[in-house]
C-alpha cells in the first residue's frame, strides 16, 4: 500500500458559466448531449474507467456544480486535483479572457507542488456554432505561453475531440504521478461500511 500506483484520478473542470463544462463531461462519460441550457443542477462528479498504457484507471471528473457562477467555489473543490481542464467558449471572447484568472485561481487554491508543470488542458468549446470570435491562433498562443499546455477545439454537441481531449488529460495526469501524493496513503471509506472489527481490534 505504501507505494501505491495511482488508479484514481481527480480531474476538475473550470471555466465561466455556460461554456459547456457539464456538457463536455456528459458527452465524454455518457455520450449524451442536451441542447437545453440550464445552469448546472444535479451535476456532481462522473467517473469513467480508461486504459492508459495498459493501466486501468478510474477518472473522476468533478463539475463545479454551478458554484462558479458568483465566484463562490470553495477551496475544498480543488483538493487533491490531479489535472485541471480549463474550458472557454470560442464564440465568447470574455470566456477566453477569463482563462488567466481561472488558472491563477486554481494554482492559488489547489497549491500544487510544482505549479509550472501541473497538467492543465485547455478546451475551446462550441466550435459547431458559427459565431466564432476567438481564433485558434490566439488560443494556441496563450497555451504556449503557459508552458505548452495542450489545446483542443471541441464540440460537446457533435462529440468532436472530446474523447481525445480526455485521453490526453488522463495521460498527462498520470505522468504527474511520481511522488506527488505522499500524503494520505490510506484513507477510510465510510460509505462502504466493512466489518472492520477483526482487523482493527486486538483480538483477545
Amino acid at each position, binding site marked *: 500500500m505504501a507505494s501505491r500506483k495511482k488508479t484514481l484520478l481527480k480531474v476538475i473542470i473550470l471555466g465561466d458559466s455556460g461554456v459547456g463544462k457539464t456538457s463536455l463531461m456528459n458527452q465524454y462519460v455518457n*455520450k*449524451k*448531449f*442536451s441542447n*437545453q441550457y440550464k445552469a448546472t*443542477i*444535479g*451535476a456532481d*462528479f462522473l467517473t469513467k474507467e480508461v486504459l492508459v498504457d495498459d493501466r486501468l484507471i478510474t477518472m473522476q471528473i468533478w463539475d463545479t456544480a*454551478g*458554484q462558479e*457562477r*458568483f*465566484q*463562490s467555489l*470553495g*477551496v*475544498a*473543490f480543488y*483538493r487533491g486535483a490531479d489535472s485541471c481542464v480549463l474550458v472557454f467558449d470560442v464564440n465568447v471572447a470574455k470566456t477566453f479572457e477569463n482563462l488567466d484568472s481561472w488558472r491563477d485561481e486554481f494554482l492559488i*487554491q489547489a*497549491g500544487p507542488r510544482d505549479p509550472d508543470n501541473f497538467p492543465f488542458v485547455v478546451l475551446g468549446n462550441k*466550435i459547431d456554432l458559427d459565431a466564432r470570435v476567438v481564433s*485558434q*491562433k490566439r*488560443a*494556441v498562443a496563450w497555451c*504556449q505561453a503557459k508552458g505548452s*499546455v*495542450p*489545446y*483542443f*477545439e471541441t464540440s460537446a*454537441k*457533435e*462529440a*468532436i*475531440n*472530446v*474523447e*481525445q481531449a480526455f*485521453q*490526453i488529460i488522463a*495521460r*498527462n495526469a498520470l505522468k504527474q504521478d511520481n511522488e506527488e501524493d*505522499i500524503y*494520505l496513503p490510506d*484513507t*477510510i471509506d*465510510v*460509505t462502504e*461500511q466493512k*466489518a*472492520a*472489527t477483526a482487523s*482493527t*481490534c*486486538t*483480538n*483477545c
Partner: protein
Amino acid sequence: MEGLPGHFDVVVVGTGLVESMVAAACARVGRRVLHLDTRQYYGARNATFSLRQMGEWLRGEEEEAEAEAGAEAGAEAGAEERRGASLAVRAAPTGPSRASHAGDAAAAALFRPAEFNLDLSPQLLLCAGAMIDVLRRSGVANYLEFKPLGAHLYSAASPAAQPRLAAERVPCSKADIFLSSSLPLLQKRQLMKFLQACLARRAGGDAAAQSWLAGRAVKAAAAPDAPPPRAADESPHGSFAEFAGRQRLPDALLDVALYAILHAPRRLESSADGPSAEEGVNGVCRHLESLGVYGPSAYLANCYGSSELPQAFCRLCAVWGGTYMIHRRVSRILLDDGGRMEAVVTSEGTVRCDWLLLNADSRVELPAAPPSPPAAAPSTARCVCVLTAPVLGAEGEELALCTVFPASDEPGAPTVFALQQDAGVAVCPKGKVVLHLSAEGSAHRSARQLLEPVLQRLLELAAAAVPPPPAAAAEEEEEREEGKGEEKEEEEKKEEEGGSKKEAEKEEEEMKEEEEEEKKEEEGGSKKEAEKEEEGQMKEGTKEETLDDAAAADGGGAGEGNDERRGGEAGGGEAPPPDATPALDAPPPRVAPQVLWGAFFDLPLRSSTDGSGAALPANVLPVDDLPFAIDSEAAVERAHQLFKTICPDKPFLPSLEEYPPEPAVDEMEAEIECETPRFIDTQFTTKVEYERWLQSRSSSRTSG
C-alpha cells in the same frame, strides 16, 4: 447582477457547519436555496485557515477590510430605504477577542500558503454518531477523506494528580481494559461491569453487551425508540454521576467517563450535576458502538481541516440546485404588514423568500435590542500551535486526542481538549505537528491564562520523554521559573537574556542537522525555500530557549521526585506518550517538541440577535454560535431541528433510495445520442502525444 431569481424558498446566510447542513437538507428535498456568506471563505466559525490567513484573522485585518465593505453596503441599503418596515442587518465581528498572537510574519513566510490548514474549531467525527450517519446516507462522504484517530488519551490537569504521565489511554474495549497496566485489577472488573451495565440498559442491549464482551464491534441499537428491555430494574434516573455511584464505579474512572467520553465541559460541582443518567448511558454506549468500526478508537478525522465538512454540504446543496454567493451579504430584512419577513436585500439585489437563516456573523438590529451585549459573554478558549514534534501518542499515533481533566482545586475549571494533527490529515507539512487546545472560555481568565499551563505541561512531559541533552543542569531550572510567565514568541527579550545562549546554540546545531536531513528528503525543494528554512531555524533556535530549558529542567527534576517513578513506568508499558524508549529500529530518538508558531484566542459565542431573539419575525431563524464540542453531534442536532422547522414533513438529508430525486419536469426533451466520437484536426500542442495515442488505439478499435 446576472440573473438572480427573484424568489427563493430559503435564504441561508453563513456557511458554518449547521447552516450548510440546513441548506443542503433543504435543497435536497426540492427547496430553492440561496446560500450566502459575508466572508470570502467558507466555514464561518468552522473555517480553516492557512498560516497567513490565520495571522490576518488574529490581527483583525480581515475585520477592517470587511468594515469598509460593510459601510458601502450599508449606504446602498440606506438608499433603498422604502415603503414598509424593515430591519437592518449589520456584520457582526467575527474575529477573536483577547488574542495573543505568538507567531510572527517570518514564521508564516517559511511555508507555502497551502501547507497549513488550521482550524478555528477543530472537530472529530464519532464513528457511530449522527454525523457519520448523515454523511454516509446523503453521499456527502464521497467528497471527503477520513483518517482514524490514532490514540484517545486522557490526562489529569496537575502534576499532583498524575505525576509523571503525560497521558493514558481511555480504556474502552475489552482489550484496552485488559492490557491497561495502570488500572488495578479491582478497577478493571468494576469498569467491565459498569460498561456492561450501560450497554444492557439500551434496547437490544443484551446482545450488544455480549458482542462487546467477545471483543467485537457493538452494533448500534436497532430501534433507538424502543423501550429498554429492563427498564424496571433500576432504570437510569438522576444524574450520570449518581448512576455511576450506584454501579460502584470508582471516582477515577467516573472522571474518565465524564470528561474523556462524555466530554463534560467543566468540573462538576456535585454528583447531581452534569449529564443525566440517560444521556450519560447513551453517550457511553454510543462511544462503545464507535469502537472498531473504522479504527481502534471511536473517532475519525477528516483530511484538510474541519472546514471541508461545511463545504462538502454546500456542494451537495449546489448539486441539488442551491445558488452560492460567497462574500455577499444580506443588509436588510423587509417585513410585510403582519411583521413577517417577506424579502431580503442582498448585495446582488432584493430577493423574496419564505425563510431566512442567519448565523451570528450577521446581527439584526432589532428596535428593542439592548445597546450592548451582556457583560459575561460566553466564549471558547483556543490555542493553536505548530510544533516540531508530537507531544501526544506513540509512533504512528500522531493523530491523537487527549482530554485534560479540569483541575480539581478550582471550582468550574474547564476540561481541555488537546487535538494533535499531523501531515497524515493534510493540515501541515511532513515532520510538523499541529496542536489544538480548546476549552470552555471563562469571563475572568483569557484563553492564554487557561490554556498556557496545559500547553506547557504537554511540552514538558514530551520533552522529558526524550533523553535530556548532556548539558542539562540546575542553572537552567531558575530560567525555567522566569521563562514560564514569558513567551517563546517574545523573541527579542529572549535574545537579551543570552544566559544559556551557548546551550541554545548547541541545540540549535543539532536541530539544524536533523531538520535539514528531513528537509532534504521531503522537499528536495528550491534553493529559496532552503534558505528561508535556514533563517527560520535560526529563529527557532533563539525563540525556543524557554521551552528547551524547561525540558531540560524537567529532566533534571525527575531525580528529585523519585517516588513518582512507578507511575512513569506504568505509563511506559501502556502508552508511552512520545516513545519513552526509542524503538529498536527507529533511527533518531524523537526530538523534544518545540513551538514554531502559536496563538491563543477567545472565540466569543455570538448571537445574531444580541440575546433578544423574541422580537425576530417568526420566519427568520437565528443560528447562534454553538459552544465548543470536539465532535459534531450537537451541530447535527441543531441542523436537524432547524430543518424540521422549515420542512416539517420531509426527511433530513435522506439517501437516494429513501427519497429519489423528483424528475425534472421542464426539460425532459432532446437529448442527442452521439455514437461515434469524432476527431478533427485542430491545432494541438502535443501532437506527438496524440499520434502515439492514436496508434495505441488503432489496435483495439477504430474510430470515425
